[in-house]
């Protein structure tokens, strides 16, 4: 009896260090910086450090990352009146607008992906994004942007007038935007046909609209590519840069084991798109090494409308939020899609396009263009109320974290 009491006391004394902290290991530490100052979202840079505090070199590198993010946002933001994109949006139809190199590069890439996806990714749906209530004037409580004639008192019960949907859709022909480089300067020309004058019953023009570009579906991806280049240039081998969960550039994870390619992959959780249905915070985890992973989903910005969910991704073919058009009252469709192996900007735009394409279109596109990339999407069947994960990644690479989602290997 006395022996067992003695053992208990010894065990209790030994457990004290566990309760109150353990000695530091010699292993390097994963440190990071977070900022909320760019793109209205959270930017996270993680890096490996031999010390418990960041070195001056890391502080300087974080400064360079922030500076580049700021430059990109200044160029692409629609919330900044002086940005290249805002000036393009403010221009009249037919105007040629000088833009900066960043805007030119991103618009050129957007145009390439617009054509590759047959218009499923279309950044010229800016008016529709505003019509459905997903621009910064709705999401930024301090926005001083004026009300628009098409604003509605209650977005969860009232649809926009159909003439706005039809005419805004007609203004979204991104193929007719002309991008040029002349003598080291860059220009974008707004098509002369991209104007709609709304008239009253007596034929008087009461409202005038021209094409509006919104690079929300590619801009963050471009920023991630730029930070990826900064990390590479600095010789960073381990860590990642995550911009708002939209795109993440992953280097390697020092603490994991090498894969068959000699790389140490990082596990990245993919957020559960239906937290009201599945309790797990992530629906899947995917191993990524030395690559970018981009995601789009209807769980980022949305509001309910009857049985449907209106999200910020607009289907340029219907003018309605993706999976939210009247022909699809059950809301069936792809609710989240992810791609790894592309640049973050192409991945960002491509995942948006996959959601617009729908299940059959996405499967055909994956077969044609993405068979050597890592693609995963969740399809919701609104009739059967089932969720199915389609992926071309092996079970070693992609692990499902929720029960109740079927898995289909592409």
């Amino acid at each position, binding site marked *: 009896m006395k022996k067992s009491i003695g053992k208990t006391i010894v065990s209790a004394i030994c457990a004290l260090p566990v309760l109150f902290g353990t000695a530091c290991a010699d292993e390097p530490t994963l*440190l990071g910086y*977070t900022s*909320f100052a760019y793109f209205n979202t959270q930017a996270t840079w993680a890096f490996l450090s031999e010390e418990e505090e960041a070195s001056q070199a890391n502080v300087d590198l974080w400064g360079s990352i922030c500076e580049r993010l700021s430059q990109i946002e200044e160029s692409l933001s629609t919330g900044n009146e002086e940005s290249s994109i805002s000036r393009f949006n403010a221009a009249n139809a037919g105007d040629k607008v000088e833009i900066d190199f960043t805007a030119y590069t991103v618009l050129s890439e957007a145009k390439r992906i617009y054509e590759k996806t047959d218009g499923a990714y279309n950044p010229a749906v800016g008016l529709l994004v505003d019509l459905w209530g997903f621009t910064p004037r709705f999401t930024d409580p301090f926005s001083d942007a004026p009300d628009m004639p098409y604003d509605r008192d209650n977005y969860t019960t009232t649809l926009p007038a159909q003439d706005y949907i039809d005419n805004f859709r007609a203004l979204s022909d991104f193929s007719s935007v002309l991008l040029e480089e002349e003598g080291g300067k860059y220009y974008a020309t707004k098509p002369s046909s991209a104007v709609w004058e709304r008239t009253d019953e007596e034929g008087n023009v009461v409202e005038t609209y021209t094409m509006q570009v919104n690079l929300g579906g590619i801009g963050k991806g471009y920023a991630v590519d730029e930070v990826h280049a900064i990390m590479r240039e600095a010789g960073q081998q381990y860590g990642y840069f995550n911009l708002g969960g939209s*795109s*993440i550039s*992953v280097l390697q994870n020092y603490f994991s084991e090498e894969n068959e390619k000699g790389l140490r992959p990082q596990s990245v959780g993919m957020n559960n798109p239906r*937290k009201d249905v599945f309790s797990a*915070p992530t629906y899947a985890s995917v191993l990524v090494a030395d690559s970018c992973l981009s*995601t789009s989903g209807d769980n980022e*910005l949305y509001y309910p409308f009857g049985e449907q969910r209106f999200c910020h991704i607009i289907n340029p073919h219907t003018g309605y939020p993706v999976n939210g058009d009247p022909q699809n009252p059950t809301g069936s469709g792809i609710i989240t899609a992810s791609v790894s192996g592309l640049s973050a900007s192409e991945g960002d735009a491509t995942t948006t396009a996959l959601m617009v394409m729908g299940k059959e279109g996405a499967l055909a596109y994956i077969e044609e263009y993405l068979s050597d990339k890592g693609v995963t999407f969740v399809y919701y069947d609104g009739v059967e109320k089932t969720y199915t994960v389609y992926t071309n990644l092996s079970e070693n690479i992609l692990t499902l974290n929720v029960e109740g989602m079927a898995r289909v290997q592409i």
Partner: protein
Amino acid sequence: MSYQRVEQVKKRPPFALWDLLIYGILAVAVVLLFVVFVFTADKSAIEGVQILFQDEVAYTYSFEEGGTAAQGYESRFALTEENGKIVLIAYADDTREHFNRIEIDETEKSVKVTDSNCSRHRDCVFMDEIKTKSGVIICVPHAMKVVPLDGKQDFSNPTVG
């Protein structure tokens, strides 16, 4: 228990040697815990707060950089300004029926829950404001926590989507 056994127990000293040792260790543990949690509490000023629903970070507010909802939580928060203070309404679910009103004073660098429809008692409304890094406000019915924004984040499990 027999009468004889009762008498035997009565004759024993009130505390055996090992009992005293165990009581002593427990007393030391209590004092240690008191010292650890009271005297070593981080009294440094907060730089912002994070709002967690079911232990998942749903919103981050930095005094320097403003607020951002985490992916998937954008529709669960509404930010306004009243009398020079930031007012953040945090909805416990998508129906927006259940809420906590969180007041953020950027001048005083303090955060407090000022209203809620979580329960009749509204315990979260009466919890101390958060001014130091050891502060926390918890609303159990809404599974919501307000915690100081801390530099010591865990970067090992990034998520997307």
